[in-house]
Every structure is written in structure tokens, then in C-alpha cells.
């Protein structure tokens, strides 16, 4: 819908300065976006270079612009040596990289990516992720659609959780904070009453002792943990490890989906 491939059902959305919905704006929007669909959709009987060059012509790039961008992206993604090989002979990872290059040949302001690392081996997925981060550092707006929450957390500045409808939008930290149930686990060399008293004074929630391990409930570990560590240190405790468990982005996602189903 945002790529103007299908009509909007209701509501409003803007890409750049153009509102989706009209045929006239659709053409303008398509000029300023790049799309990496879930299916790479390459012409398998064309070479890697021909695939890029064809899309360059569809975006009305000049011969010189196409030559420059084709070479730049093929080299950047490690496909230059394979530029004359048919796309049909490429591995999944290479095809995915070529599809990303294809979406970038016209230097779009906004890039839409649908599951760009799905079905890739870990090495190829890492290459693609690093390339996306590189694009991000070039101030491109990237709209990444993924089921991989770890990937979303690593790449995205803002995350929207969708489950038939938009359920939440925010940074990874903001979404994580929306879910209670995170715990800080502290391993000490030795736990004594002074340490327990100092933590009770901090009014930590659900303090549990198991041998030399203490567990407390936290809402915002980044803010609460320094105080906890400081209190233990002041009470003479020797901390071995501090670990935050539970309530990741995945927990936030699962909680929101469950709520939506109810």
C-alpha cells in the first residue's frame, strides 16, 4: 500500500510530501522509493549487471548514472566479479544482495524491505544486515518489515508492532519498558543481613534470596540497577555478576499480541 502497489483501504499515509491514494502521487512516490520484496523477483535469464541496468532505465537514469551506480553497488555487495553471470545461477544470498542493489540503483530517499534476511544463511544475513546499517548511516529512511525481532532491535530506530492492526510504536527500549516482569539477578560472593537491609531500604520489589544469588523485579533496569549496585557496594557486598532477564522486545511483542487476541 505504501509503495502504491495496491489501493489504500482507509485512512491516510504520506510518503515524503505525497499522500498515497491518487494515481498522480503514486508515480511521484514510486520515483522516490526503492522496494526489496520478500520474493527477490530477479530476471533469472538476465545477468546481474543487466538486471540492475534494466531497473536503472525504468527509473529514467542516464547511461552514465547507470554505469556508475551499477558498478558501485555490485562492487559494494561483492558481486562485481559475477556481474556477467545469469541471476538464475546465484545463491539465495547473492540474489538477495542483488535485489537490494536493484532497489538502490536510482538512489531512493526511502527504502522498503520485506524480510530482507529471511531464508539466508547466517553469513549472508550478517552481510545484508551490515549493509542495511551502512545505508542507515547514510541517512536513508529504511522501512524494514521483519518477523525477526532481534534484527529489528539491532537495526531500527523505531519499531512498530503489527498484528492485523498497529499495536505499538516506539524505540526498542520504550517497547520493552511497556512490559513488566523484568528481573535483575545479582550474584555476590556472600550475602548478609546488611546487604538485604540496604536493598529493602531501596524498596526493591520481590527481593528473593537463593544462596548468594539475589533476584529483584525491575521496571527500568537502566535506571534502577545503578542504585541497586551502589546500595550493595555501600553495604560491603562483593558483586560477581549482574544480569537482567526477561521482558525483551519479544516479551513486549508477545504481550501485545496476546492482548490483541483477547
Amino acid at each position, binding site marked *: 500500500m505504501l509503495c502504491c502497489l495496491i489501493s489504500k483501504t482507509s485512512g491516510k499515509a504520506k510518503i515524503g510530501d505525497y499522500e498515497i491514494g491518487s494515481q498522480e502521487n503514486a508515480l511521484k512516490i514510486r520515483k522516490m522509493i526503492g522496494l526489496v520484496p520478500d520474493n527477490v*523477483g530477479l*530476471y533469472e535469464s538476465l545477468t546481474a549487471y543487466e538486471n540492475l541496468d534494466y531497473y536503472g532505465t525504468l527509473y529514467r537514469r542516464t547511461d552514465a548514472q547507470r554505469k556508475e551506480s551499477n558498478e558501485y553497488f555490485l562492487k559494494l555487495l561483492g558481486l562485481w566479479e559475477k556481474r556477467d553471470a545469469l541471476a538464475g545461477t546465484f545463491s539465495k544470498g547473492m540474489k538477495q544482495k542483488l535485489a537490494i542493489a536493484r532497489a538502490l540503483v536510482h538512489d531512493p530517499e526511502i527504502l522498503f524491505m520485506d524480510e530482507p534476511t529471511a531464508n539466508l544463511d547466517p553469513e549472508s544475513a550478517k552481510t545484508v544486515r551490515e549493509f542495511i546499517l551502512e545505508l542507515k548511516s547514510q541517512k536513508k529512511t529504511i522501512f524494514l518489515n521483519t518477523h525477526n525481532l532481534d534484527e529489528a532491535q539491532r537495526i531500527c530506530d523505531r519499531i512498530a508492532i503489527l498484528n492485523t492492526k498497529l499495536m505499538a510504536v516506539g524505540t526498542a527500549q520504550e517497547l520493552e519498558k511497556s512490559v513488566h516482569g523484568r528481573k535483575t539477578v545479582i550474584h555476590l560472593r556472600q550475602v548478609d543481613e546488611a546487604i538485604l537491609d540496604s536493598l529493602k531500604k531501596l524498596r526493591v520489589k520481590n527481593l528473593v534470596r537463593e544462596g548468594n544469588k539475589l533476584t529483584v523485579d525491575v521496571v527500568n533496569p537502566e535506571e534502577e540497577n545503578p542504585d541497586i549496585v551502589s546500595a550493595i557496594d555501600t553495604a560491603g557486598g562483593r558483586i560477581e555478576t549482574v544480569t537482567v532477564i526477561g521482558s525483551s522486545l519479544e516479551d513486549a511483542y508477545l504481550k501485545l499480541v496476546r492482548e490483541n487476541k483477547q
Partner: protein
Amino acid sequence: MPWKIARKELKVIRRKKSIMFYTIALPFLLAALFSLVIRNDVASGIPSNLQLGAESILYFFVVLAAVLPSTIAGYSIVGEKIEKTLEPLLATPTTDGEILLGKSLAAFLPPMLSMWAGASTFMAVADYILRNAGLSYYYFPNWNAAVMLLILAPLAAIFSVEAGVLASSRVTDVRGANQIAGLMFVPFMAVFVAGVEGIITLSITTLLIFAGGVAIFDVGLYFVSKGTFRREEILTKWK
């Protein structure tokens, strides 16, 4: 832009050996077959009905012009859908008209060039046979041949291409599109049969009238193709 789309299509077609073989070989096979027919007919001298026989045979190349593009045209849109290349294509700022025209050009050019080459070969061989059989002049080329090959055949090919592209954007599998597009030779075959049976004479006037009718259909089909090309439906409803 349509020419750029056509150029890519031609590259893809060039690498599909079965389509290339069918497109190139058929006109030459027919040229060889029809040359044998002419040779048999003149074995005992120039026949009195030479014009009817030679013109009817040449008209068959018009029928061929309506048959050959169906494979390429039928594959044009549904092929993109099957190979999953349609989504990125439709995400570019290319208009429906440019896509349809580009695809049509690519489906039109190879069959037409191939048909002209086959018809030229046939005319050259037929002239050679007829001259050896005692005809005092070169029978081909003549005005009838010019109207058939330079006016009617291209219009027939356009008719087939447009019907093929239209079918390709309305059906969900290549075979269905090819079958529908393949039917477009029927009106041209009907004229061929009518000519052979003597119901009509394949004179310049008859051929021009028929060409005029085909041209009207060609224009109409273009607008129908453009008006019924539903990007969204193709993307969302075809599986």
C-alpha cells in the same frame, strides 16, 4: 520507455531457446514446404490457376503472422507474475501503457522479422522454380504480396499480440493465455479457406478492406487492454 522494456523482453526471449526455435524455424519450415508444393504444381508446366495457388500460399504467411506472436504475448504479463518479477516492476514509476506497449513491441518484432524472412525465402525459391518451369517473368514480388506482407500481416500480428497481452493480464496461467491468444488466427484462417474455396478472391481490394477491419479491431483492442489492466488484481488475486 516502451522501447527499453521491449529491449529487455527481447533479451529474455533470445535466451529462451524453445521460443526462439518456434519463432524462427516455423516460417522457414513453411517456406520449404510451400516451395515443394509449387514445384509439384509446375512439374508438368505452368498451371492456369497459378495466381490462386501462389497467392493462397503466400496468404498463409499472414495466418502465420497471427499465430507466431501468441507464445511470446501470452507469456508477457502472466510470465512476470509466475517468475515473481511483477512486484518490483510495478513498484517503478512505469505506467501501465508503457508496460503494455513495451511487452507488445517485444512480442511483435521477432515473429514479424521471422515471418518476413520466411516469406521472402519462399518468394525467391518460388520465382526460381517458376522461371525454370518456363514462366517468362518474376511472379514475386507483386502488389498483392506487398499488401499481404507489409499491411495485412503486421496488422494481423498486432491483433494477435494485443489479444495475447490482454489474455496474459486476465488469466492466471501461461497455458490459458497461450490458448486464448492462439485462437486469434481463426479469422485469418477463415479468409484463407474462403480464398481457396473461391468464395472470395484475394485481390488487392479484398485484402485492403480486410486490413481496414483488422486495423479497427487493433485500435479497439489496445484501449480494451489498457482499460482492463488491473495492477492490483494481478498482484493480489493471482496465485
